[in-house]
């Protein structure tokens, strides 16, 4: 039964089910397919911190949201157009995020007494009118899967495990996407388990065909490919892009990479990816703890490696003392912090941008470091390279902040041509008659010397060093001088970073200023606000310490500055102290990215106040 195909610009889909239902995988497959067929996409996985939280309960719900569009997009969307819910708990948890009139495709079979009770429903929501604001499409997914696999020879348990592919097939049908990439993927993945492979393919197709045959759907949809820049693309998550950035920096600098790290959610994946790249000259050292992670990296930096350590908030806290050592010894070191919900262990699997003040200020003594941040999954690639470039050029530790949202989320990444990327210059001092370990070049950087170089034996460490000579020095004036010199060196990185760009008008009533992972949400909010005629500009920071040199100037051009953050106002605080202006804050610390409609309302609120004020 051929159905009408409606063209849409953009859709936000969320797959949700039990932790064991394979929702992350389903979402990722859907995302890859839509990306492969040329849409721009952005994804947002969201899962509980337990490995398998109790089946059927709301605390066990795992979700994967994805936005795909024929337009360039930068966020997985605030509100959901289509929810695929594999059980009652998934409906319960996600209902609050649905658009009015959203489609809910539910696995009807899962709405039995037990599951309803586990989800905390007193009545079956499919049977009362509690979901009347939505288009609910009940599909007996489990039954249909079982039917499809009757003769497969698989065990009942194995059969039921295939049901996510039924849902996936159905969604592919609904959005007119091809099954081929998924079939190929299944063929590779289950090469050695042919029955599983065949079963999943069969169920996938069954789901697709079900869409075609059922009367439950009256229309299907199509999203045109996005008009992205020409080039070869792939999908990357932020963590993957960060890992690739590390390898790329190593190649561009012709210096072997050393990663010292201790696993921690949501940063572990960077270590996992890099552990695979052993034939790229990468050494990964899974240390006994975060302190050994960073200090081993400092040892490797002393030895001439491109050294990096990766972690998340609590781990950054533990590395604090050692970062000071890197400051004093002036060794290049990149510290990557994938921020998560705090304080303390906090919300370990949820996103948050609340380590900014720690990164900028959190060390004993006057211990300045460069602080950068990435604003989207693919941006992680470029900012990682930038972090290494600055670290080796200025012989300084650099902290790069990403967050759980961009680390786990993914988007299309235009694959650069490696030869086009600018080289990172690394020059080890190899001889010198008058060698002084704390002599400085024009960047105020001291020389990098590899142990093993004859004649340049020297000793460094965490005690204050005399200018030029690098001997231990307790001299008062030298210490004052060196503290100021280190501060100056870090500040001078400003000359080497790009000016902050302002989108839309370069001056006016309102600028929305952001940093890091809020880019997409802000971008959409501003775009939508402009569509309804509001004059509002946007600027987004990738460099926090030092700030771009034109930032003060940019800020002075706008009457009001709005800073939305997933914290209680950490950038706002730094901006206040640097520029003595009082930005308007928008702070939501919910373990989730900001929602663009909320930012949009805030913009509206500010601009209408502004107008009122002017009329007074």
């Amino acid at each position, binding site marked *: 039964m051929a159905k009408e195909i409606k063209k849409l610009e953009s859709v936000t889909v969320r797959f949700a089910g039990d932790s064991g239902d394979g929702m992350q995988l389903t979402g990722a497959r859907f995302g*890859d397919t839509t*990306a*492969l*067929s*040329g849409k721009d996409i952005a994804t947002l996985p969201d899962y509980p911190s337990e490995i398998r939280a109790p089946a059927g309960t709301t605390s066990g719900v795992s979700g994967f949201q994805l936005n795909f569009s024929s337009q360039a997009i930068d966020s997985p969307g605030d509100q959901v157009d289509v929810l695929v819910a594999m059980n009652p708990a998934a409906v319960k948890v996600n209902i609050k995020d649905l658009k009015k009139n959203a489609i809910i495709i539910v696995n009807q079979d899962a709405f039995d007494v037990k599951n309803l009770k586990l989800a905390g429903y007193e009545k079956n929501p499919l049977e009362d009118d509690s979901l009347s604001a939505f288009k609910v499409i009940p599909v007996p997914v489990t039954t249909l899967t079982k039917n499809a696999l009757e003769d497969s020879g698989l065990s009942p348990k194995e059969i039921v495990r295939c049901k996510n592919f039924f849902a996936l097939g159905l969604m592919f049908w609904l959005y007119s996407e091809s099954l081929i*990439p998924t079939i190929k*993927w299944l063929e590779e993945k289950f090469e050695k388990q042919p029955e599983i492979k065949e079963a999943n393919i069969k169920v996938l197709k069954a789901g697709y065909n079900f869409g075609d045959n059922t009367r439950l759907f009256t229309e299907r949809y199509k999203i045109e490919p996005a008009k992205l820049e*020409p080039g*070869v*693309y*792939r*999908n990357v998550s932020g963590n993957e892009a960060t890992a690739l950035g590390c*390898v*790329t920096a190593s*190649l561009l600098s012709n210096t*072997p990479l*050393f990663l*010292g790290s201790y696993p921690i959610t949501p940063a572990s994946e960077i270590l996992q990816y890099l552990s695979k*790249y*052993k*034939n*790229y*000259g990468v*050494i990964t*050292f899974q240390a*006994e*703890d975060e*302190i*050994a992670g960073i*200090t*081993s*990296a*400092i*040892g*490797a930096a*002393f*030895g*001439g*490696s491109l*050294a990096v350590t990766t972690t998340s908030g609590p781990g950054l806290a533990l590395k604090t*003392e050692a970062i*000071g*050592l890197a400051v004093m*010894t002036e060794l290049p070191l990149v510290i990557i912090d994938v921020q998560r919900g705090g304080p303390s262990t906090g919300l370990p699997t949820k996103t948050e941008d609340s380590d900014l003040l720690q990164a900028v200020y959190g060390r004993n003594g006057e211990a300045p470091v460069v602080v950068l941040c990435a604003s989207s999954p693919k941006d992680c690639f470029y900012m990682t390279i930038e972090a290494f470039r600055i670290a080796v050029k200025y012989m300084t530790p650099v902290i790069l902040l990403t967050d759980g949202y961009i680390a786990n989320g993914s988007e299309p990444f235009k*694959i*650069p041509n*490696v030869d086009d990327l600018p080289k990172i210059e690394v020059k080890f001092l190899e001889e010198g008659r008058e060698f002084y370990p704390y002599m400085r070049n024009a960047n105020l950087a001291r020389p990098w010397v*590899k*142990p*093993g*170089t*004859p*004649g340049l*034996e*020297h*000793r*460094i*460490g*965490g*005690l204050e060093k005399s200018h030029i000579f690098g001997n231990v020095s307790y001299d008062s004036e030298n210490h004052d001088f060196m503290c100021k010199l280190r501060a100056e060196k870090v500040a001078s990185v400003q000359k080497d970073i790009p000016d902050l760009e302002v989108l839309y008008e370069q001056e006016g009533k309102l600028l929305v200023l952001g940093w890091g992972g809020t880019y997409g949400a802000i971008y959409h909010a501003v775009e939508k606000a402009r569509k309804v005629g509001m004059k509002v500009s946007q600027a987004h920071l990738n460099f926090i310490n030092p700030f771009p040199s034109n930032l003060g100037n940019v800020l002075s051009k706008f009457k009001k500055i709005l800073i939305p953050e997933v914290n209680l106002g950490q950038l706002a605080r730094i901006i206040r102290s640097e520029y003595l202006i009082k930005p308007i804050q928008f702070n939501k610390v919910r373990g989730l990215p900001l929602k663009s409609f909320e930012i949009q309302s805030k913009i509206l609120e500010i601009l209408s106040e502004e107008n009122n004020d002017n009329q007074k």
Partner: protein
Amino acid sequence: MTTKSEIKQKEIKQLTYQDFVPENEVKWCPGCGDYSILAQVQRVLPELGIEKEKFVCVSGIGCSSRFPYYMNTYGFHGIHGRAAAIATGLKVSRPELSIWVATGDGDMMSIGGNHFIHACRKNIDLNILLFNNRIYGLTKGQYSPTSRKGMVTKTSPYGVVDHPFKPIALAIGSGATFVARTIDREPKHMQEMIKKAGAHKGLSFVEIYQNCVIFNDGEFNHLTDKNTRDDNLLVLEHKKPMLFGKEKDKGIKLVDFKPIVIDLNKKENSIDDVLIHDETDEIPMRAMMLACMAEDSNLPTPIGVFRRVYKSTYDGDVHLQLQEVNKKYGKGDLQKLLTSGNTWEIK
């Protein structure tokens, strides 16, 4: 035994003691046992057949940890407790370097304990010299994890209540492959231990009893005083019976897993009753016994090599794996890596 490094030695400029003495003034207290350790290291390193620029001294914080400043080699004076971790990163990334970690009983046994046991476990090819003065010297006399129970120090005015570590037992329990002990006042013996540590492939741990003249003076007098030394010191020798005493007339005998001292002058005892030392036991029963022998048990204190066994090193295995992966998959092509996974082209 001719080690590989001894063969190589001939090709290299013969280094001397003086090559390792830097201009810097040595700033330990006059009379400190650290001077002897420094001198023995400076004497032994030239004999290891390694180029001077390949030596790196790494330390944490403490009097003992000032060591790198007093060695004319590459040196890294780290932060308190982290010497082993810093050295690990350096060794794993630069396995050709000869790394000497100088550390104290506070630095390595207290705050640095975790890095120590993990370095031992992984068998990282480092040479760790523990300057054990059983006190915090640099911070002026607080007790350390090796201080004896009852010791009165600045932070134990009524006596230490902690049971101390037995650093050798801890090293063995952590899986260390070379474990030895020596004393600041036994220069020849110390040189021998340092030489053997240097020759050992894998982590070498040498505990050095070191006198702190200021805050714990005389701690090891019973082992260094002429009159008592021979009755208190058991000098271990590989494959030799465990004999001690001025006349080597006392021996260690094992009775139902309990070491006792026997007097060989007595008729009922014979040299055949005396336990033979073996550094190379796969299962460290003997080494553990020796590690637990101490002043307070009426048994002599052993010095020498407790354990010396072969196990692959972490740094070696890491590079072996790198080679294997390279062999299997070929040297990585970054452009290919970036382009891996599902890709699509937009024209």
